[in-house]
């Protein structure tokens, strides 16, 4: 389909407008749509978006009306206060508010809920091993998905060795 505006490029943006029961259609190429200001340009910083989303959710989750008001025993922050600024009060909040935080964390990290990167060298051996296992399992998933069975077998052996060592 040709662009209605420049009658030159292919129309890739199709606009249907219904007002007062009257339906009109417009077919434009990207360039003409842009000229008419039809494409969204601004990128909202994630923080801002998050706090907008959070404050828009005025209804607390049905199953946790108390979670909104209950405060962290370590720093005193309530989940409601966190919603306002999207800033937590102390490291323990990740455990204290885990239930309420998890959907937000998943949302911001494309579904990611577990760390699989660097671990401080001072962390306990157990922690390091857990993180390593997580990373290996992720790699295994990718290897299987990509049908890279040789790499998958190697990864499976590595995971088994780590688990063996634990016993």
């Amino acid at each position, binding site marked *: 389909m040709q662009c209605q505006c420049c009658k030159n490029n292919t129309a890739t943006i199709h606009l249907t407008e219904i007002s007062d029961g009257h339906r009109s259609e417009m077919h434009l190429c990207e360039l003409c749509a842009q000229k008419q200001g039809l494409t969204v340009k601004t990128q909202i910083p994630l923080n801002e978006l998050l706090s907008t989303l959070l404050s828009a959710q005025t209804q607390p989750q049905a199953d946790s009306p108390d979670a909104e008001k209950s405060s962290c025993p370590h*720093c005193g922050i309530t989940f409601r206060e966190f919603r306002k600024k*999207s800033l937590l009060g*102390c490291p323990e909040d*990740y455990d204290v508010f885990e239930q309420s935080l998890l959907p937000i964390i998943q949302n911001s990290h494309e579904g990611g809920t*577990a*760390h699989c*990167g*660097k671990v401080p*060298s001072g*962390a306990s051996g157990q922690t390091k091993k857990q993180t390593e296992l997580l990373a290996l399992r992720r790699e295994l998933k990718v290897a299987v998905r990509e049908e890279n069975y040789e790499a998958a077998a190697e990864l499976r052996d590595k995971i088994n060795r780590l688990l063996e060592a634990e016993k």
Partner: protein
Amino acid sequence: MKLNEISSRTSEWFGGSGPLADVVISSRVRLARNLAGFQFLSRCSTSQKTQILEKLKAAVMALDLGDEVFYVGIDKAAVLDRDLLVERHLISRHHAHAKGPRGVVIANREFFTAMINEEDHLRIQVFKAGMRLQECWEQISKIDDMIEQKVDYAFNPRYGYLTACPTNVGTGIRVSVMLHLPALRMAGQIEKFFNAAKSMNLAVRGLFGEGTEAIGDFYQLSNQVTLGVSEDEIVGEFTNSIIPKIVEYENLARDQLLVKQPDLLDDKTSRAIGLLRNAHLISSQEALFLLSHLRMGVNMKRISNVSIPVINELFMLTQPAHLQLNSGKKLEPTGRDRLRAEIIRSRLNKY
């Protein structure tokens, strides 16, 4: 090292060298860290903030980075000094305008900074010219290890490095690449770049100027996901697929401009150099816009007698705080526009 010593030169990361330098100005990797046993900053009293500041300042100042470092107490610094640090990308705008005890440790050659008491207790970053994210990551990770020898970080096996905002939790890594994409814009393709970035969950911001608006076709592209992916994966994806693709598109758009619209290209670059060489009053926005065209003209070999380092130097030195600190006086906007035009004329008319 004093601030007035760095204000008259270009930052090393803006030197115009490094891989893919025609399109990639610079690379940066930042890590967010917090101390174990302390609350996050929003819940800290002034005295706790001072304690954190002193502890981290001592730890970072004692590092062996292969370069001297200096410290600037942001809460006590003059407004112009803070603005200078923001213009040089050594601190964030947030750090400049926040409240309470806070500061920054800077390596003399400006490849490294550590912001203390920004949104998190510690934000360390390494910059390099051109596309060198991998080197940035290796270096910042080593520095991170050295700091960790001296302090305990807030870390949890499930969520990784714990940060004040859950959007940074996990690796706490932010990789950023500064890009110059004038041809994509001229070809009307820049929206595609925005949309592609959005669909990959990447953030695009302007490199210069306030807020997110991009002036002069300079963009900063960064990751937003920090949990569930490793640092190596993020750096690898930027290095091996995302950035090479964008560079390829920009170069394609440049080639097409040369073939299809050479007159338009030469008109833009020649007008830019004409105005820059002759203007007597020039706002920072106009300067950025024209210098961007000039940079494109030089990189595309349509203008031969101006060098990229000279253009980059002008980008940096004609920003408001730089102008005022280097002239040694506070200037009103018109005064700045006059001085900016004067500096640009004198540099560009040498050739």
